[in-house]
């Protein structure tokens, strides 16, 4: 087993030493990518019918390129192989989600998500009229904020991810954006909901209790 320094030194050299290190690393990356794809596949259910072995090879190759490119960024704050694995896992999970969501038209899904308003399924056990009225007021604030104060993109992202469980990476791909940018869209939408609820006298934890107890 190589130490971190041995990995860095070998990958930075030329010839047989580098070749052996690259081969060893590639084997580890294929294993990591396959592990990630198999997990993703089992979660995707019937959507997860794709060739794990071929995809694992492709992801490992792409991860290897990224690792060599980012080698100067390795700070040594973990084992080298743990650091390297995260590239293969990232690429494999993104690729697996892509395969699973391929048959779904995100254009249609986002259009529908953006255009529809939510109707909360009621619970017959919520009998306390005062509690029901307060819950109704909170729900109105949530609806108003989503429908009138979020941008179109924020509304689409929030609804697609929360209700339709579209993976964030699929929106990133669909919009040609970045994870940071789509995460920021969602963050800003959540922050707006939180501050609007607070401004109307609803502590978010209280509202959570109202809806958490509604089942």
């Amino acid at each position: 087993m190589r130490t971190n320094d041995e990995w860095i030194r070998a990958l930075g050299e030329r010839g047989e030493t580098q070749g052996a290190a690259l081969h060893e690393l590639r084997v580890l990356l294929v294993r990591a990518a396959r592990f990630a794809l198999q997990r993703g596949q089992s979660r995707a259910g019937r959507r997860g019918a794709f060739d794990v072995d071929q995809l694992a090879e492709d992801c490992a190759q792409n991860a290897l390129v990224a690792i060599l490119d980012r080698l100067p960024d390795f700070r040594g704050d973990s084992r080298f192989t743990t650091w390297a694995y995260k590239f293969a896992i990232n690429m494999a999970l993104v690729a697996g989600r892509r395969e699973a969501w391929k048959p779904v038209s995100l254009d249609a899904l986002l259009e529908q998500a953006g255009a529809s308003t939510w109707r909360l399924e009621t619970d017959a056990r919520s009998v306390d009229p005062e509690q029901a009225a307060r819950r109704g007021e909170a729900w109105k604030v949530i609806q108003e904020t989503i429908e009138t104060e979020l941008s179109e993109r924020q509304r689409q992202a929030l609804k697609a991810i929360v209700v339709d469980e579209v993976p964030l990476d699929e929106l990133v791909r669909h919009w040609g954006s970045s994870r940071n940018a789509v995460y920021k869209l969602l963050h800003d939408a959540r922050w707006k909901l939180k501050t609007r609820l607070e401004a109307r006298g609803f502590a978010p934890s209280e509202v959570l209790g109202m809806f958490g107890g509604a089942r």
Partner: protein
Amino acid sequence: MERSVDPRVIERLLRDVSETEAEEISCSECFDLLSPGVELDLAGAIDAPILIRLAHHLRQCGVCRDEFETLRDLLRSEPDDRT
């Protein structure tokens, strides 16, 4: 057009809303902290500053959480003498 929504979906959203902070780390920062974070988690160092920074983002971001958990489980599946 109206769409029926399960209260559990709203509960999940409101849990995320209630935990939202004005400033949060980005997915890139999370990725940077992933490998030391997972090793600290496996070592049981739950009070480590890196894990505290990561924990909030991981509760909010499903794709980053998936990467953290996959890396953690991959390491768990390996022999201890891995370098």
